[in-house]
């Protein structure tokens, strides 16, 4: 069940240029959180920006009751959010949306992240690892300094392969090329992907060609975040004329459902 609460900020740090990690205490929201879900955050009390901003669960500590977000500053809302300091409060609503489906134990999952799209995959990696799946994560970014999830992924203890466009770390080039060159499709049971649409389209195509099922996490502008305003519409292949709502029916959808 979703809640609204003012979460006490424990930690708020700039982990790379314009990339922030925000951890806050959310005793009501945290217990129900599942990977792939999101929280709807109010960045300020002013009317401008007015609406909440959806941010994925980057990590959840259910013992402590805390939620960690990873966000990139792209506009007004995320800019304002950077000003919240430890010991202050962040207004959060969640957990919202339908998260990733979880692979059964002993299966192997490939997690493909692009840029800040790595956020939901880190919490997913943790949960999959905990329940005994084998997890491989590949992450494509522009440059080494954007590999902000490295620490967490190491701590979780999953296999990690980065790609950078400038070659400053890992494979030089697109994450999809890294995928084709360094991952043996026969080893993979399921693919999870989050990042720019173009990347998700290509990863879905590669997965389909190799007969591997998977899921992607989509984005759209949101107002309510709960399916009430019908704003975040997206047509799926199977839904004919009907639009699905990314906030409620998603943000996670089966790869085969999406027309990129």
């Amino acid at each position, binding site marked *: *069940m*979703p*809640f*609204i*609460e*003012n979460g006490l900020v424990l930690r708020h740090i700039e982990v790379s240029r314009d990339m922030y990690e925000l951890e806050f205490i959310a005793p009501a929201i945290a217990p129900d959180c599942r990977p792939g879900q999101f929280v709807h955050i*109010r960045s300020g009390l002013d*009317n*401008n*920006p*007015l*609406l*909440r901003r959806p941010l994925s669960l980057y990590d959840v500590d259910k013992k402590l009751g805390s939620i960690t977000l990873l966000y990139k500053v792209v506009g007004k809302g995320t800019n304002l959010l950077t000003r919240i300091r430890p010991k202050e409060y962040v207004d959060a*609503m969640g957990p919202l949306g339908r998260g990733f489906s979880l692979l059964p134990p002993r299966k192997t999952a490939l997690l493909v992240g692009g840029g800040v799209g790595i956020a939901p995959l880190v919490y997913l990696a943790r949960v999959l690892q905990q329940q005994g799946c084998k997890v491989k994560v590949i992450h494509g970014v522009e440059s080494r300094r954007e590999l902000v999830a490295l620490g967490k992924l190491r701590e979780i203890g999953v296999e990690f392969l980065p790609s950078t466009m400038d070659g400053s770390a890992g494979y030089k080039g697109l994450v999809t090329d890294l995928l084709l060159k360094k991952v043996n499709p026969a080893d993979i049971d399921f693919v999870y992907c989050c990042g720019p649409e173009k990347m998700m389209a290509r990863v879905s195509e590669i997965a389909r060609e190799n007969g591997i099922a998977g899921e992607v996490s989509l984005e*759209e*502008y*949101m*107002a*309510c*975040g*709960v*399916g*009430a*305003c*019908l*704003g*975040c*519409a*997206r047509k799926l292949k199977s839904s004919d*004329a*009907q*639009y699905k709502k990314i906030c*409620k029916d998603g943000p996670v959808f089966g790869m085969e459902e999406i027309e990129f």
Partner: protein
Amino acid sequence: MGKEIFMPDEELDLSVNLGGIIMKNPVAVASGTFGYGGEYEGFIDIADIGAVIVKGTTLEPRCGNLPPRIFETPSGMLNAIGLENPGVGIFLQEYLPRLRDQGVTVIANIAGNTIEEYARMAAMLEGNRGIAGMEMNISCPNVKEGGLQFGVDPDMVYKVVKAVKEETSIPVMPKLSPNVSDITAIAQAAEAGGAAALSMINTLMGMAVDVERRKPVLGNIFGGLSGPAIKPVALRMIYQVYKAVKLPILGGGGIMNYIDALEFIMVGASAVSVGTGNFVNPCLARDLVWDLKKYCIANNIKSIEEIRGAAVQ
């Protein structure tokens, strides 16, 4: 959260009779911003809301407009949902019984392409238990075939309200479009047609441009502007209409807190509606009632009636 413990006087009765629509308190949630109620379950007890005005329904199901459908603008937002809804039949079969069982005060919202469609929907709603009122959307700017024409022409407003009124005993509340040059002429036409109350205002037509793509942002090009940005327009129009007609007014447009609500009441609204504000605070309707009660107690006000229209000169 963060609110001091303070029990508002349980005796203080803020119920209103909005032209026959009985509301337990003067705060409604606006059509299209609260789905069919269920979406916000868990955040707020919807039976506590003065009235839940459900998403606009049409005779036939509609799949709505091409995305993007919403876009934030300074202190407001544009929407072009395009009246996505499952049709009045599904509303009656699936959604209404659930709301009725929960004890929710339901106001239906209907939109049609022709006078006959409005009348048929009114006839379909008639006789169903649990519909406290019927809001007529004669102002939705998004659907090309209908919408705007009805709401901008007094003659059409008179005819469509009269046609609906003839089909139903449920109190009829036309929702006025602000996209007109003389709002009082429209209000008077609705009154003459037999409206029990007026709802105002609907969204103001607007647009936004994506400079990078050199295209309109919204899939539908135009959308309806809502939120705090439209509050001054809404207040002005309610002020004018309050002076021009006798009908009770459900006022809204950009309400975010109880002071906003008081402004609407002081220009003549008998009750208020919150729309976009629900997206920011899903508990806004409840918070407003609470804060209005505190305000009344602090100012020794026994009923909202005492301050209604107080700012009208």
